[in-house]
């Protein structure tokens, strides 16, 4: 019952808001905040009750849904899904509090959309049934479409459609792949089932495994987003309202990597091992390309958006290194990225609320009228570029260790991205916070109490994970070992030379 409650609590809040609180902004805003805080508290409660030593899924619920196809309402979490659920619930609460007064038009619909979106995101991480997963995965396209399209920036309509079509295109291919694996299993001696855990035991082989892997991988790569299917991201992140950007960057991108873990690796470990080199190459391109693009962005939000492409490149590289450090670092870096980029978007939102511009050239010297904001901003910027003592460093370090063990050349390439990230972030910070303050910005108000409270949990997390990541990594040990156990049989036969690896991957098609 706990996970059902966790998944549908936001919808209950939505129902209350729609029935009782129409036309009373303070009431429904409070209700939205209370719901999301309760949700976060519930997620923390689950984490405390969670047994990190136990392998497999916990808090499992299973009820038959569509009997003829073996589809069930099946929920459960392991350490990876739990830590991402924590991130989701926390960022949603923060997004609601942080953009309390930013939305003035159709406010009720905005908060309703955010809470519906939360249900979708938690549902994706908690589903253990492929059909259920797909339902949650797709359902959240609709609220996100409206969040970008209704309350976004000047090019919001274009960005909203682009976001929708890109993701939808990927996920419908995934749907066909899902059907294909289900029927393959049914015709090769298994039951007709959409149960993820059952299908992970199926041992898909042959050309089906390759094509289905490709379909799943493309769907998730679009969401991550990996180079070269990242082009929806800068538009969507830039045009979305602050809360939308926080959720998009903080949570939605992680669903892509999460899907890779569950499906690409869980269903097709053999193909996943063969795909290491292509994925590493794409990740390295994403890391460097995203960083290079960030360097030249004149728009603050676009800069942060491209930095996401770069940072998510780290995550995929770490995951496909297939060793303890790489996988744990990869998942932890997803949390770190959610915390830091979410915070950066929130800070940019605070600046935008006051200045109504996102262009870096219009900024300058904000440190003198807004010292508190500048201080917090500096913390998140430094975290993002990987300063030891803050969380970004821990994740990047683990990933580097993992990738280094796999292939030194990729570790070196990924390191270039770290250097570049220091470049674009510090340069951006210098141009916005330091230098001479333009006349018109001298009277800007510093952050208020609400705004500081909203980012406070992120500050705490950034420092906590930076100094003492143990509790978080504890959640990830067992799932990382599970992933490694899945790919272990195939890693040994995986050729060491790049050419051989390439041939083995593309030879299969």
């Amino acid at each position, binding site marked *: 019952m706990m996970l059902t409650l966790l998944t549908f609590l936001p919808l209950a809040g939505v129902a209350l808001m729609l029935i009782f609180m129409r036309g009373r902004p303070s009431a429904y805003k409070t209700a939205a905040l209370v719901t999301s805080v309760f949700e976060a508290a519930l997620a923390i409660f689950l984490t405390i009750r969670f047994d990190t030593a136990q392998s497999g899924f916990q808090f499992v619920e299973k009820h038959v*849904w*569509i*009997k*003829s*196809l073996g589809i069930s309402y099946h929920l459960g979490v392991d350490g990876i899904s739990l830590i991402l659920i924590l991130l989701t619930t926390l960022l949603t609460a923060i997004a609601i509090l942080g953009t309390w007064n930013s939305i003035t038009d159709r406010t009720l619909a905005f908060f309703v959309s955010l809470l519906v979106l939360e249900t979708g995101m938690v549902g994706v991480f908690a589903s253990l049934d492929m059909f259920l997963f*797909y*339902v*949650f995965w*797709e*359902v959240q*396209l*609709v609220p996100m*479409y*409206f969040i970008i*399209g*209704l309350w976004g920036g000047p090019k*919001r*309509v274009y960005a*909203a*459609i682009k976001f*929708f*079509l890109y993701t*939808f*295109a990927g996920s*419908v*291919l995934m*749907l*066909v792949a899902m*059907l*294909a694996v289900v*029927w393959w299993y049914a015709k090769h001696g298994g039951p007709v089932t959409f149960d993820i855990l059952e299908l992970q035991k199926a041992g898909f082989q042959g050309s089906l495994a390759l*094509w289905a892997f490709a379909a799943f991988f493309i769907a998730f790569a679009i969401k991550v987003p990996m180079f070269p299917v990242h082009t929806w991201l800068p538009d969507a992140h830039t045009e979305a309202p602050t809360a939308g950007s926080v959720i998009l960057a903080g949570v939605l991108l992680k669903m892509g990597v999460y899907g890779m873990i569950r499906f690409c690796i869980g269903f097709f470990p053999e193909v996943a091992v063969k795909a290491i080199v292509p994925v590493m190459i794409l990740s390295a391109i994403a890391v460097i390309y995203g960083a290079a693009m960030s360097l030249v962005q004149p728009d603050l939000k676009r800069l942060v958006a491209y930095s996401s492409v770069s940072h998510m490149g780290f995550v995929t590289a770490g995951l496909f290194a297939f060793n303890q450090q790489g996988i744990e670092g990869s998942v932890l870096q997803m949390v770190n990225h959610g915390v830091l980029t979410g915070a950066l978007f929130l800070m940019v939102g605070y600046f935008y609320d006051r200045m109504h511009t996102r262009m870096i050239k219009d900024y300058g010297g904000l440190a003198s009228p807004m010292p508190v904001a500048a201080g917090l901003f500096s913390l998140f910027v430094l975290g993002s570029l990987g300063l030891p003592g803050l969380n970004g460093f821990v994740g990047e370090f683990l990933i580097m260790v993992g990738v280094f063990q796999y292939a030194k050349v990729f570790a070196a390439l990924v390191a270039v991205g770290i250097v570049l990230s220091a470049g674009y972030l510090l340069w951006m910070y210098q141009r916005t916070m330091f230098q001479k303050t333009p006349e018109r910005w001298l009277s800007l108000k510093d952050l208020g109490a609400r705004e500081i409270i909203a980012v406070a949990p992120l500050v705490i997390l950034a420092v906590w994970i930076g100094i003492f990541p143990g509790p978080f990594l504890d959640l990830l040990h067992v799932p990382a070992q599970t992933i490694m156990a899945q790919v272990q049989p195939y890693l040994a036969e995986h050729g060491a030379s790049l050419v051989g690896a390439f041939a083995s991957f593309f030879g299969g098609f």
Partner: protein
Amino acid sequence: MQAADVLTVLPELVLLAAACALVLMEAFVKTGGEGRVDRTAMVAVALTGLLASAGVALGLWGEERLSFSGMVVLDKWAVFFKVLFAVGAALTVLMSPGYLEAHQRHLGEYYALVLFAVIGMDLMAAARDFILLYVAIELMAISSYLLAAFFRYRVRSNEASLKYLVTGSFASAILLYGVSLVYGLTGGTGYESSGAVLASLGGVGAGANGTGVAFAMALVAIGLAFKVSAAPFHMWTPDAYQGAPTPIAAFFSVGPKAAAFSAIMAAFILAFPGTVGEWGVLFLVLSILTMLVGNVYALVQKNVKRMLAYSSIAHAGYLLTGIAAMGWSGNSYPGRGVMVYLVAYTFMNLGAFGVLAYLKAQMPDKFDYSLKYFAGLGRRSPLAAILLTVFLISLTGIPGTAGFIGKFYVFGGVVWAGLWWLAVIGVVLSVVSAYYYLRVVMYMFFREPEEEYSVRESISGGMACSLWVSAVATVAIGVVPSWLWDAVVGAFGTLFS
């Protein structure tokens, strides 16, 4: 005819009684005086007839009869479609009065014609003989031609009817030609009896007789392809839908289309078992063409009603993939998905057209269904905008709605048959469809209107009832689809008993 045969067509007899009553009632209505004639009683009679027919049909669920010398069947298959047609027609009737009042053409024969068309559709699904199938199609079609021309003083309405009539007659002639070949080859017109003979004659390559069988099969297929508006036999569809009164366009897009699909499935499974591979390929080609044509043309439409007409062609394409998979695999399993889809499609498409009918009734003079009139609808009439959004999202195939369940089952069957590449074509084209459906949503919510115009009254009465039923059904099928699947499995089971 024996007394027991009456039971087989009892739902149709109920409809016939109601339709005749409607014609009589209209004849005795006083016209020419001042003040409007209240026709609520007629709406009530039509609804009662439809619901009674659905109720009688449901009461017969589980009965197995073959009557009138094997021409008409009463089984779960027939009941399934009879209920579906009656519900679809009832929703159409509910959304009509306001629309017809706004156009000052509220006449009783409208409802009588709808009922006659439903009788034809019922018999199309229940027919087990080509001659009866032909007669049923004609009954349905002639009523449809008249309904399309219901606004007889409008050029567009006349154009719609005439196009429908000419192409419809053409299709009927082709179908008849195919039936005459069947008769020539087998000496009979019953599905199963002639099917057994045709199967023994073989298919393509089995000499002259084999070629004849293939010809007969192809001609019947083409005749019915006209009726489901499959490309390249779809040209009449956009004009007929656009010119016809909107509730009637809604009705055309779901009722006769579903009836034609039921006829295709029954006729081809039973009468052409020997050429199963051939008709599989034929429908495969048709389905790809239809999906392409429907989606690509819908993409460039500025008129929402016309866009929905093309989108209905696209949906016919998705449905045909299920038929193709049935023939390809030689197994009826994919056909079940087609039936689920037909139910889902009935509710979501009726709903979408219904919202258009409501808007037209509110602004009869200005509103011409072009996109610009949808701008700002989210503010002016939030309920209509939200309902239309639900229907469009369902047509797109987003989970949580009936449209997704339909696509899921149809493409599930297609992949099951090994045609995964066909499913890929289908889903990729539904991404294309997302663009034109969402464009309407975008106009409603993200654009401000160019000029001020407002709806006069909120959704009420029969229209509200019709739209809410459609919306609730759309979401309910999306969330709990198992009962529908069970019903479909029951219905399909009896086709091969």
